[in-house]
Structures are given as C-alpha cells and as structure tokens.
C-alpha cells in the first residue's frame, strides 16, 4: 500500500548502514580542496591550524558526544557526491522542462492561486542581498530596512482590507484562516466556527485537520451549484455558541456573498465575522470587507508580487479591528523612536508570541513570509490605489469576455450571475476528464470541481475558470475551440 511508503522512492535506492566507502579519508580530503567546494571556504591548512587551537587531533574528536554506533564512518553510501554548478543546473533545468508552465500555454486556473503580471522591478528588488539574506529583524538598529517595509506592508494590507491593523504576514491564506478561527475563539471564549460552503475546500481541510486535534467545533457545508452563494444557510447556522462565521469573498465558485447581511447576523449573537480572500486584486473593484462589518479579514496575498510557484511560498494576510490586536497571531512591527529621538521601527507586542509566552502564546508561528511580504508591498506600491482599481477593472473585463465566449460553446453554461475574475461553468460531463483532455491539447483550461470535491458527485460537472490581465484574446479563443472539440469528442 502506498500510504506506508509515504513519499518514498522504491526501497532499492535506500542505502544501508555499512562499511565506509572504499576511498580513504585522506584522499577524500585532498579531493575536496581540489574539487570541493565552491561554498566551503576552509582549506586543509586552515582546518589543521584550527584543530591545533582547539586542542583536538581530528574533526572526529569534536563529535565525541555522539555514540560510536550512531556515527557514520563516511559519506552515506548510495547517494551521489558533490556536483558542479553546471551539472546541477543541467539536472534542474531538465526537471523544469518537464512542466508546462503557465506562460507557455493558454492558462485559466485560479481556485486560490492567480497568475498576474509581476513588474520586473519586484524580483530585482527582492534579490537585493540586504533583503534576501537578512534574518528576522531582532536587532532593529541594523534592520530598519526590513522593519520599515513591514510597517508599510501592514498599513497597505490594513487599508486594502479596510481594517484597523494588519500583522507582518502569515504562511499563507489557508493557515491564516485557521489562525483567525482560533483567534475568534479566544476573543469570544466560544469554540464553534460556522463555515460557508464557499470557503476553499483546501482551507476547509486545513481547518478540519486542526480542529480534529484541538477540540474546536466546525460546522462546514459543501457548495451547491447555484448562481447565488449560501448566505441564507450560513446565517441560519449562527447561534449563541458561534465564535466565528467564516465566509470567502468572492467564494470558491466566484460568487460574491453579501457580507453586510452576514455581519448583521453575527453581531446579534456576538460572534465574529471572519472574511477570507484568495484574490486580493478583487479589492480594486469590490468593497473592502472591513467596510462591510468584517471583524477579522485574512487571505492569500500571492496574487501581488509572489507568483504561482506551484503553490508556495505564498503570503498569508491577516487584519482585524484594533480592539483585538493583542489576540492576534504573528509578528507585528510598530513605530517608535531611538535614543536620539529619530523615528524608527521595532517588532512589538511580542509578549503574544511563542518565544516569550511559550505554551500560552497566541500561536506557535515563528517564521512568517517576510520576503513574499516585501514582494507584495513593492507590487502594491507600484500599483497604488489607482493602479489597483485599473488592474481590477481589466481583470473583470477579461473575465466577462471569457464568459461570453465560453457560453457560446455548445453544452457549456455559466453558473454565476456575478463574479470578479473567476467563475464557474457547467459542463455536460465530469470536468476532471475535460481538464486532462485540454492539457493534452496544450491548454490549461481551469480547475475542475471534481478535483476539489472528489466525493461530491453533484459538483463534478463544474469547472472553475479565471481570466486576468495576462489572458489574451488568442488564449480565450484557444480555450473555447479546444473545449468545443473535447466536448464534441466526448459526446461522439
């Protein structure tokens, strides 16, 4: 059974503990200086001199605390030894070449990860060594660059989401979603979360994974293939035990829930409205959740600056009302002054965090997503409020054109009556098969609901499609044509 060989290659390639390799240690050490290593500056002479200072006769003396039985006598057998930059590049490029990249095909995937054009300066700037190779800014006097970026980022996220405060980022949208549920539990001292059927199923899975072990009660529902989201069902599920109501905006099928109505219902019972956003670009067009009554807004920030990257690293955004700030997870950057009275920034309110509160911390999070936050912040600075509105308008326009064209394909109908840049079309058969057939034709045609909800047969005709500013008229035509051919072939 595969489950037992979890992520393992066949056991024949597994090395056994055994005698050292035939090459003698001395010869190997010599070879190292000749061939190895472009990353290791110590020379054999350095090593000998340093051992002298230490008072040891060999490096192995320094490992004397390791029981002899656990010390490997030489490099692990069966694994390749070091390789040149050229050889490694060849190997990795060959692997990269086995992928069909989004830029090389008509591409329409979304469902929590969106392809947007990233301005060239973003990647240039995040590769500045002073950003790329810095650590968490625990020594603020020599980390003002990172800290000021985080302060700017927090302000951008708060303004984007329409909330008072935002933190310095989380791992990604899905983990931020769980953290928001836990935080709402702390604020309300209740244990139940009501999840809308429009919440990304992978986010639901993350929440259910955690809740299974922590004792939170999760009241989740599956989406229904209707034009409108399940606002009424969500509101009906809210009761006096409810800590949080979690609603995705726009939802997994691209529909737009009425946050104001849901907020009104949560306020009656003292529950918190947690709004989840997988596509921040939507906020160039749609009203900010904080302006519609959201108490906590979390989401994925990958759309701006970060790129697709096969799912990670991504960027968790996390904002809330000011009165809850001390219940927030994650790092926070705050403004202060230095000993000369100059403005400066520090990590603050860290008594919430694991390195101080240990088992009483608001979260166990330590590392966040700093470099992705920088990329997001640069991209957002290049857009500004004006550019974001334009970008959103272009996305929305492209998606309308896509919807019109797909609706002309025989057998295809558009489910939504409102959407931003992503919507659901209904196909006559199982969309999983269609997506695979489209890929065989070199078209990356969307995300099938069957892949997201394999157990829900009533959803298997659904296909999520997305258009962004990167989608061309030729792409749309290619998808419509290929989709027509695939459906015709399936019917025949």
């Amino acid at each position, binding site marked *: 059974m595969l489950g037992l060989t979890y992520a393992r290659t066949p056991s024949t390639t597994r090395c056994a503990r055994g005698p050292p390799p035939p090459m003698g240690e001395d010869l190997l050490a010599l070879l190292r200086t000749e061939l190895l290593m472009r990353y290791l500056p110590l020379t054999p002479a350095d090593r000998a001199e340093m051992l002298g200072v230490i008072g040891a006769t060999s490096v192995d003396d320094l490992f004397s605390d390791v029981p002899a039985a656990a010390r490997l006598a030489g490099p692990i057998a069966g694994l390749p030894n*070091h390789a040149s930059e050229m050889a490694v590049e060849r190997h990795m490029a060959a692997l990269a070449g086995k992928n069909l990249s989004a830029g090389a095909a008509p591409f329409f995937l979304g469902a929590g990860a969106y392809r947007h054009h990233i301005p060239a300066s973003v990647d240039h700037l995040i590769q500045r060594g002073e950003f790329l190779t810095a650590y968490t800014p625990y020594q603020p006097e020599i980390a003002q660059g990172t800290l000021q970026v985080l302060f700017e980022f927090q302000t951008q996220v708060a303004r984007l989401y329409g909330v008072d405060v935002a933190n310095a980022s989380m791992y990604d949208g899905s983990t931020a979603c769980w953290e928001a549920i836990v935080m709402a539990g702390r604020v309300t001292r209740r244990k139940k979360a009501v999840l809308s059927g429009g919440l990304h199923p992978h986010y639901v899975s993350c929440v259910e994974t955690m809740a299974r072990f922590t*004792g939170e009660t999760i009241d989740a529902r599956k989406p229904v293939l209707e034009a409108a989201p399940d606002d009424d069902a969500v509101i009906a599920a809210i009761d006096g035990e409810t800590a949080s109501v979690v609603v995705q905006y726009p939802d997994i099928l691209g529909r737009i829930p009425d946050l104001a109505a849901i907020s009104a219902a949560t306020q009656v019972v003292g529950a918190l409205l947690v709004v989840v956003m997988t596509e921040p670009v939507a906020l160039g067009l749609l009203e900010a959740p904080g302006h519609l009554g959201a108490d906590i807004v979390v989401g994925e920030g990958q759309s701006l600056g970060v790129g697709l990257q096969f799912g990670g690293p*991504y960027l968790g955004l996390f904002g809330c009302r000011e009165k809850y700030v001390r219940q927030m997870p994650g790092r926070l950057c705050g403004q202060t002054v230095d000993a000369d009275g100059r403005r400066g920034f520090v990590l603050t309110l860290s008594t919430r965090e694991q390195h101080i509160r240990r088992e009483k911390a608001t979260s166990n999070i330590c590392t966040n997503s700093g470099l992705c936050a920088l990329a997001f912040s640069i991209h957002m600075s290049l857009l500004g409020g004006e550019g974001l509105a334009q970008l959103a308008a272009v996305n929305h326009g492209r998606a309308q054109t896509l919807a019109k064209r797909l609706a002309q394909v025989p057998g295809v109908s558009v489910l939504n009556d409102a959407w931003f840049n992503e919507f659901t079309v209904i196909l006559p058969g199982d969309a999983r098969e269609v997506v695979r057939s489209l890929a065989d034709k070199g078209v990356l045609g969307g995300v099938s609901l069957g892949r997201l909800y394999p157990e829900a047969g009533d959803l298997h005709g659904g296909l999520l499609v997305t258009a962004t500013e990167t989608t061309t008229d030729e792409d749309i035509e290619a998808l419509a044509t290929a989709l027509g051919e695939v459906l015709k072939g399936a019917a025949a």
Partner: protein
Amino acid sequence: MNAPNASGWKPELGPSGTASPVTSSGDRGLQLEEPLIFELGTGANFGVDLDAPEAAPLASLGRFLRKDKAALPGLTEPEAVRHYTRLSRQNYAIDLGPFPLGSCTMKHNPRLNEKMARLPGFADVHPLQPVQSVQGALGVINQLAFWLIELTGMHGVAMTPKAGAHGELCGLLCIKAAILAKGEDRPVILVPESAHGTNPATAAFAGFRVENIPATPAGRVDLAALKARLGPDVAGVMITNPNTCGLFEPEMKDISDAVHAAGGYVYCDGANFNAIVGKVRPGDLGVDAMHINLHKTFSTPHGGGGPGSGPVVLSEALSPFGPLPFTARQADGTIRLIEEEDAPVEHPQGFGRMTAFHGQMGMFTRALTYILSHGADGLRQVAEDAVLNANYVLRSLEDVLDAPFAASGPCMHEALFSDDNLPDGFSTLDVAKGLIDEGFHPMTVYFPLVVHGAMLVEPTETESKQGLDRLIGSLRAVAERALAGDESLKSAPHYAPRRRLDETQAARKPVLTWQGHVQQPAPPIPSEIGGS
C-alpha cells in the same frame, strides 16, 4: 577604545555627538534616510501600465462595488526602485558579513539556488495543474523527499509544512493521530526547559498539556527525571538535538528507548541538523518525527523573516498518519500526487491538509539544488566545518567570556557564552550592541533561557578562517571593553542607522500602521473606469 579598525578607518565621536556637522537633508554621505511610501507617493501615480478595461462592471455587481479607491500611494518604477534600494541599505545581511545567530544557521545562500527557483518551469506553474503537466515539479518534491529520508535514516517525510514551527505541529499531529488510532488518551508532552519557544507553543496549539523536564548541570536532558515522569498519560517528548546549548545529547538513544517503552513517541526539533548532516542519522537514534528547516541546514534564504520550509521526516510508526498531499514514484518513473481523491484507498489513516497546496515549492527547488551541489560527501563536510568553526570560536574566546559548558567537552555547531564574568552594570545586550558598531550582526542573545545572559554564536561552515578571526577579534575587543568598564558600550550602537530603540513606547502605545492621509485626486467612481 576607538582604535583604528582593520581597514584603518578611525571614526570620530564628538563629546556629545555634535562634533560632526549637521546636514540639511538628514542624510550623511552614504547613510541615507528614507521616508515612508505614504510620505513619498500620491494616489495618482503608478508604475504599472495597463490596457484600458474592455467593459464596465457587470450590472449584477453594482451593490458590491467599492465606494472609494483604496487609500494607497502609487510609485513609478524609478521612485520604487530608489525607495526600496535605499531601505535595503539599512539592513545587515549575510551578503555583508557573518551573521552568527545561534540556532538560526545563517549560512551563505548560493545564487544557483535562486537561479533554479526562477526557471519558468518551477516559478510559473500552478499548484492545481493536471499532474501530467507538472511531472518535473512533482519530481523535485519526490527527489528532495528521497534525500531527506536518506539523510535522516527515516521512513517517510511530510513535505507540506510551511516552516519549522509548522513542521513541529505536523509531527505532533502525527503523534496525536497515532495515539488516537490506538484508542489511547495521552494528554501530556514533555519539553526540556532549554527548548525553543515554538516547542511548548506548538504542543499547546496541538491541544497537548506541556510539562517541563529539567536539565543536568552539564546542559543535557536529565534522563533520570525524564524516566521518572514517563507514564500512560505521556504522549511523547520534544527534544532538540543537538540541543539549544549547542551540545549533542549523548543519551538520545536511551531517551528514545525509554519513551518508546512507555508507549510514547520522540519528536526531535531539527533546527540544529546542520551540526550532524551526513554524520549522524536521527533515525538511528530512535526519533519518530523531526522537522528540517530548509532555510537553515539547506541554505534557502531567510528573507528578513521567511518564508521558511519545514518538511517532517517520520518513522514507520508515524508515516501512515501524515498530511495530504504527497507524491509517490511509480515503477514507470512517473510521479503520482496523492490527494483527496485517492486518499481513502492509498492513505486511509492520514489526516487532511495542513496547508492549501504542496508546501514551499520555491524552497524545495533551492534546497534540492543545494543538496545536489554538495552531495553526500559535501554535506558531511558541511557538518564537520560547521562544528570546527564553532569550536574554534569557543576556544578563542573562553578566556574573555564565560563559557558555561566549555569544560564538558567540545560543542557542536554553536558556542554558548554567558554574561557571568561581565562587571556589574554590563549585560549581554551591551556586548551585542557593541558588536553592531564593529560591523557585525550580533549572536543570538538571551537564548537559551536556561543560561543567564546567554550569547549563542553559530558561525556556520561558510565563514572562512580569516572571516572568523575578524569576528573573534571584534567580540574579544567588545568583551574587553565591558571588562574594563567602558561606559560608552552601554549606549552602543553609535554607528548604526539607528541608536537603541524605545521598545517600551512601541508596546505601550502601539502604532502599527501609518496614521496620515494619502493625497488623492478626486476619485472617479468605478463604473467610469471602463469609459462606457
């Protein structure tokens, strides 16, 4: 004091700091101040040119439309490039010099890693593409998984955790799932006092109760105390090995055997794996789960605080419980992705997802590049040089800084000092800030908590001997200033972009966002954007 440094440059420090002339800009030569973007940009500019939208918003969207544009400033490209470049110069970084943060493994980040991660076949691939179109990406995950398993001598690996603490969570959830599967109730996790804060925080986040176990005077886990506490309510232990004092736990196998005999599991915090990679396999020591910080041992960049990546290697006992999704290589060489659709058959005991997609792919690409560059022999050399460098630092400074465990033998990859021998009124903080003036990033301070005024120095293997000698020389100079009672150390740093910052004010009256207003032109309503 203020002796010329190695480059011969002699700073001038006036009696009250007024000796240097005041500039009208506030900048001083290459020391550049930089306003916030909100003080720079207006709402009118932007640095992205876009086509005009082709249609007005859908009528059905009417009530959802924004009333005002987000109050965010926009910058043109020249303004943005200059803003962020100027800010970057206020940061210390590995690219500028040693970054000897203990337990953080700040080693050089090879640039080949960056180049490979940016290949479009890795960077521009969607996580939900059909598996036939992402065989290379799945191949990276599978190959890295193979290496991690082989390097640790474990049975399986969960690749998706997003960082070390997330990996800890994954490992503890596996332990909890295994206990539930046996129908047992074991609510307690034992954690040594010297543990990193994420250990107890994670155990609590996973719903366990945390109990501390003491350390011996030699800085190791007290095996007798641990054995005495084991029982039917104990789910397991979280041990860091090498531990946070920079010492190997010689009784690790005995600890594991005792925990297993009592029906518990052993979680190993792999933060310090750099000391033993290629030399020791945790699987040989009875470990059931261990996260590996790819951003430490395997050189992916820290990026000013992430992203990290924390795959968790698992024993045979815990592998059936790991999260979705994961990869499996087929006999024909193709790679399957096990997700929800196949899980009921292929991985029936596993729990669901811990994150939406496949984990930190961008970090996998970099880590695999690093591992292939080094190979089995190079990785072993990494551990040896890292340990050699740390011991060299330890023995070069133990005469001026108290080294609490120096007498008990060699350290592993980090050297631990304390403020015990500093005169009254001088603290570890002063040494750290003095080191900033010397042009170095300080070591980890006040951690581990079990040592008073701890200073944990982790040089890593990517420092040359000459570089280490400079670091040692500066640390020695700062320690000697403290020992001589040099008061100027207490107000260090003097030469950094900022002096000591008022953290009390920051925490008492938190200012977490910019409070001003962005200048905005009269906003057109969104429906006008399309010009229709």
